[in-house]
């Protein structure tokens, strides 16, 4: 049995999930969907920065263009922190392609012109 807080709306229902993935405590169906996803395959979008060689900036904000499996977040951080890019960069430019073969790219979230 697992307990978790639903984050879909501000009510924040206290969800209880049994071993057969039956959800209780949810006030609406969205809570059950969330709990199942969260317990079977939790994912998170990663946002962080990479070093950039530029006249203006020292770090470039980036994100994973799709959510990453939660357990890969720290490995992704380690790889991103070893990476560095050069200006010019545009929003959406791929900084790391297909990270760990997960079909997720790390992309720039800011324009840095020079």
């Amino acid at each position, binding site marked *: 049995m697992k307990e*978790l*807080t*639903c*984050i879909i*709306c*501000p*009510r*924040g229902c206290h969800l209880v999930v049994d071993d057969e993935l039956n959800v209780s405590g949810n*006030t609406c169906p969205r809570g059950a969907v969330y709990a199942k996803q969260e317990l079977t395959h939790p994912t*998170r*979008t*990663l*946002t*962080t*920065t990479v*070093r950039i060689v530029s006249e203006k*900036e*020292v*770090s470039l*904000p980036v*994100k994973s263009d799709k959510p990453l499996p*939660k357990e890969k*977040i*720290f490995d992704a*951080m380690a790889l991103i*922190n070893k990476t560095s890019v050069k200006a010019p960069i545009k*929003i959406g430019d791929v900084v790391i392609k297909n990270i760990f073969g997960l079909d997720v790219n790390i992309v720039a*979230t*800011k*324009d840095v012109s020079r």
Partner: protein
Amino acid sequence: MIKKRLVIIGGGSAGMAAAIKAYELGERDILIIEKNAYLGGILNQCIHNGFGLHEFKEELTGPEFMTRFSKKVEELGIPYRLNSNVLNISNDKVVTYSNSQEGIVEVKADAIILSTGCYERNAGAIQIPGDRPSGVYTAGQAQLFVNCYGYLVGKRVFILGSGDIGLIMARRMTLEGAKVLGVAELMPYSAGLNRNIVQCLKDFNIPLYLSHTVKKVEGLSHLEKVTIAKVDEKMNFIEGTDITFDVDTLLLSVGLLPNVDLFNKLPIRISRTRGAVVNQAMESDIRGIFACGNVLHVHDLVDYVVEEAREAAVGAVQYLNGELKHEGHVYEVNPGNGIGYVVPQIVYIDDVKDKLSFKFRVRKPYKDVDIYIKEGDKVIKKIFKPAIIPSEMEIVKLDKSLFLKEANEISVYVEERK
């Protein structure tokens, strides 16, 4: 002296959204004055995602969100000055700014929109007992350092206050290799969004100590120890509940305050929001001076900042075109049971085009609650909410036709269903 029809002070999301809306309404003589070297304001350092769900129906990071607006400003050719700090606004709307190229410049404005954002409450503002070592930062300062300068302020961190910026920094510093030992919150409930409690604290097993606060800060030159303790309902420390953490960094996430410095010398009343008292057009006590965004009241969602900025722009353009009459039936809007504040505080109902929105926060969390809007002693609107919390601002939009123009007081209050 330069003359401008509309001067916008502060080029954050509020300032940019107001400028774009005013342009779309036909106003062409606009100037945005921004202190920083870029447009975008606080969003530049908010690299996390969660912005723009209402505005763009997608989840953007802060820099992506602000870039959409700054590109639009460029595209429309709306003039702006960067690196320009506004020093003063006079009663007759002369705006004084300075920068290194032009020196001190005076601009005579017909209308002004103030959108200078907010600042963080700091150690001085909350009076933490104990030594005054280095290593104490506001969460926003630490955010600026790590996200924009690539500098992590510490390795072992404690966070006071469960505001969203603190929660986001707990995750951010953990991802960058720091150890966050806990977050203490004075109130029995979090000041931040549930989503952030789960994704920033629970994901990394960072404990949240509710009804706790910092009792002592120790360290000769640099911070070494932070002691927290539990408080009772009267906010007195409960003996025997002390917990001491060995840390080099204390982050404060204890609230934001509207940056109304430029209003201080003017005959403008300040409301419970700590921002200016405004009418339905987001206009202050001085006709033609408007405010929007975090300088008016602290927002949790940039989408609502943008919406409010558009209301201010509509108001400013109405004013410039002589359409704000300030005549006819007036209301004073007051927060009733359970409500901390309501914006706007004054309504000239005849100046409202078609809809009017009331923005407010509750004082504490409620479940299964009805929100009432009353004119005099008649309820003109009732809305049921399954849950409502102080950290999320509520907006109620009302049709102009709902107003009876009988009484002069409007009150907003909540009642829990039993």
